[in-house]
């Protein structure tokens, strides 16, 4: 055979005889003939500049070799957060999520043979509805940043207005994603400031901005806890301000914080979004993540929500329970250019993972994780603040599991990073590049997995650094 078909490989089952039979049945003499519809001059005739085929062993060796140049949060003590956190992942979780009936399935287009995934996603919706106290939850967005973008678009769809107000403390990537998402529909994003003392949003300033634009405000966004880790207190005031101009109130949450903090549905949110990574997903260098998206169950909102939604119904000819994708007339495969979003593949398996995570930890586990993270973060702040040359926390308001500290002594920030890495510490996100008013300030994060040994070591290393041992 002149074709390159006899490339023997475990993923390619047809034998030489079978290929002959198949070609005969089709009525062509070679596989190459099947590609005759491609104009000759377009055909690729060279050799692809790609690696040669690797065996499993070679593949694994090559990748493990490359990965020697990665350091993990097991190798180093990490105090990095800012949206992605190193929380507990029960062993039962990967054991379930990697079951091949789940992981190798497609979107449940054939619902009768996909009840497992559908029920799992319906339960996920139920869990998030319970946490947020908002009844209508989609079965996931890509991440919190895109969920925020979609929320801004939804506010305009619902209100027909085009100004979306956000606090100026947004995580930079989240803010930039929002700016991209709002470009197409020409929604204007306006920032309202935070109070440099408390670290919370400045309500008086928000009201001023509101007065200027109130006829055109589609929605007002606030985060709780916010990017600085600070717990926002005037969330219901912000909701009221949004409602005063018939705009929507949008709240961004860290779901872990809901072990301690009130649900956004209680304080007037119309839409809650969040990053679900902390609910059982590894950090994975930042993806895949889980965009939470919940709204009030209100007809106006239900028509406008983006994404897939699973409903509980029955079999056609019995009262037996059955699950199916529903409210699909909002979606791209039916509505095409009039759809509420273009989203198709979402992060279903991540949603299922968080259902399993919440089932395992239960309400008390969620509270314990939240409280343990909070207590350890408070301990770190106390110890850092004891160091001459450090102010911790910078903001006066209570924080959750993250806070901002400031180095008040003169130092060289590049050397600071190097010093930490040299001493086995990952952490401290420098806020200087994005928040010039917060010079020499760093965001640090602590979870229930951050050991006191690690915290004490971090404190000692910082103390040494400021005592001149880092060569600053």
């Amino acid at each position, binding site marked *: 055979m002149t074709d390159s078909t006899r490339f023997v490989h475990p993923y390619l089952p047809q034998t030489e005889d079978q290929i002959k039979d198949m070609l005969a049945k089709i009525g062509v003499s070679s596989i190459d003939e099947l590609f005759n519809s491609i104009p000759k001059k377009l055909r690729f005739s060279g050799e692809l500049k790609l690696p040669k085929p690797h065996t499993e062993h070679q593949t694994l060796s090559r990748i493990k070799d490359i990965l020697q140049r990665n350091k993990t949060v097991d190798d180093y003590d990490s105090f990095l957060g800012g949206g992605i956190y190193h929380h507990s992942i029960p062993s039962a979780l990967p054991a379930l999520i990697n079951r091949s009936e789940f992981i190798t399935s*497609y979107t449940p287009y*054939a619902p*009768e043979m996909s009840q497992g995934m559908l029920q799992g996603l319906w339960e996920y919706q139920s869990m998030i509805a319970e946490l947020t106290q908002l009844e209508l939850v989609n079965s996931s967005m890509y991440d919190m940043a895109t969920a925020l973008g979609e929320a801004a678009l939804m506010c305009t769809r619902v209100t027909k207005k085009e100004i979306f107000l956000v606090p100026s403390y947004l995580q930079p990537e989240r803010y930039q994603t929002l700016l991209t998402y709002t470009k197409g529909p020409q929604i204007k994003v306006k920032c309202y400031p935070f109070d440099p003392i408390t670290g919370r949003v400045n309500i008086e300033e928000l009201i001023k901005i509101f007065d200027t634009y109130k006829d055109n405000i589609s929605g007002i966004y606030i985060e709780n806890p916010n990017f600085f880790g600070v717990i926002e207190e005037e969330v219901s005031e912000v909701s009221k301000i949004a409602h005063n101009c018939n705009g929507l109130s949008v709240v961004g949450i860290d779901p872990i914080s809901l072990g301690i903090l009130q649900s956004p549905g209680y304080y007037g949110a119309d839409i809650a979004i969040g990053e679900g990574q902390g609910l059982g997903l590894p950090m994975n260098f930042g993806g895949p993540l889980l965009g939470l998206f919940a709204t009030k169950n209100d007809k106006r909102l239900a028509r406008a929500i983006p994404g897939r939604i699973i409903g509980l119904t029955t079999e056609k000819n019995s009262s037996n329970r059955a699950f199916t994708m529903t409210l699909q007339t909002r979606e791209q495969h039916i509505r095409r250019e009039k759809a509420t979003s273009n989203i198709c593949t979402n992060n279903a398996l991540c949603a299922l993972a968080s259902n399993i995570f919440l089932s395992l930890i239960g309400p008390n586990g969620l509270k314990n994780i939240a409280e343990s993270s909070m207590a350890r973060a408070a301990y770190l702040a106390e110890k850092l603040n004891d160091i001459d040359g450090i102010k911790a926390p910078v903001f006066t308001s209570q924080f959750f599991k993250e806070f901002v500290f400031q180095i008040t002594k003169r130092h060289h920030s590049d050397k600071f990073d190097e010093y930490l890495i040299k001493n086995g510490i990952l952490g401290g996100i420098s806020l200087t590049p994005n928040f010039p008013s917060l010079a020499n300030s760093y965001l640090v994060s602590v979870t229930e997995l951050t050991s006191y040994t690690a915290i004490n070591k971090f404190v000692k290393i910082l103390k040494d650094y400021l005592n001149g041992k880092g060569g600053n």
Partner: protein
Amino acid sequence: MYKQANWNKELIFEKSRSKRIGYQIEELTSEDRKRVEKARTNISKTILRESLPKIPELTELEVIRHFTRLSQMNYGVDSGFYPLGSCTMKYNPKICDEVASLPQIQHVHPYQHPSTVQGSLQIMYELAEWLAELSGMSKVTLQPAAGAHGEYTGIMIIREYHATKGNLDKKTEIIVPDSAHGTNPATASMCGFKIVVIPSHEDGCVDLNALRAAVSENTAGVMLTNPSTLGIFEQNIEEIISIIHAVDGLAYYDGANFNAIMGKVRPGDMGFDIVHYNLHKTFATPHGGGGPGSGPVGVVKHLESYLPVPTVGYNQEKNHYYFEYNHPNTIGKIRSYFGNFSVLVRAYAYILRLGNRGLAAVSEMAVLNANYMKKRSQDIKGFSVIYGKDKPCMHEYVLSARDLLRDTGISGLDVSKYLIDQGFHPPTIYFPLIVPEALMIEPTETEAKEVLDGFIEILEEVSDIAYSEEKSRILQAPINTSVKRIDDVKAARNPILSFKMLEEKE
């Protein structure tokens, strides 16, 4: 015989018993408690939770059993043949999952110092290079989280391209063929464009006259997939693209059907400017029941500066990988961080496993399998191929049950339900919209001839039954699954979307 598990549909919430726990964390010390109490007093009562959320309480085994049973009521590629057209449900190699589970992949934070993530960056850099080579593009971003997100990235690049030229006022339209996937028009609309739909020619390809009539100075670009959703290669592709380029429009290649062409023809050589890939299709990463996917986007040289930030660069002298933020015309960020990394690393492993020759063989075998099934299935009474009947198809084809419905009253939907009962995932049905009673079949390269034959035999059986008097066997299907036919109308009219809503109704 196929028989799916049929456990009762008790909800995890209904299995909950107060005070059971499924997981423990280190207990809080008395010092911890004091700090929590102190913090609580600093927080306004209005914002503190008064009672615990009502999520279920179960032991570890109960959770394991609940979800194990759910998995037994689900069907994946590992369960059986999954010829879902345009979704490329090929075998997902286990080595790729093994690689993705390494701690050096999972336990890495995106904000770590670049010197501590050189491994991750190298994988991203090389994967992007390989994908660019496969499509004939100049540079690739790995950030998009799914196919539609890749489309979004691509169309935003088209938008920004016209914006930087000061032409956005007149460049208001994106051309999309009527056979396009719904995400194409939905994406263009999200990016602020008007959609101009062009009808297909009777051979299933783009109607050049219709295209010429639709193109104007308002044309910002076109979205095409080649081979088309009908599994047919657009032979006039160069002319189509030159018509678009003539008005300074850009040509976007939807990579849904990339599995047909690896090593055979490259979108860049066809003249396309922007390409997306579905790693969860062509590059065998598991689809996870609806994601996470990954939809990298490649562009030609003159569009590199529009890519989202950052991309990964490499300094050979220092053997150092770094994030490149210098894209002067960047569309900005389209998500947080750098991409669905654990998906990327699976695709990286997959490309290594197949290599250059293997990927070409993948496309060859995918096309062989599709043509074999097309030939055999169009000979079955009641079924036909409407577009491209006598020509070879690419990696998929669209079978029509139009005659079967006309002659016997058995629809494409009924056929799909009967296939389910025999242990096959059905093809994509009722898409593309231009084919009546469509069954879009994509066998992929990883299925053996015996499997394809088994599927064809069932189609023959459906036909025999439909043309006999025993139709009820088809109309009752499926009966071997965990539920029979589902009341979708009730689901939409009386939506019960969470346990909370169920409790309120009961």
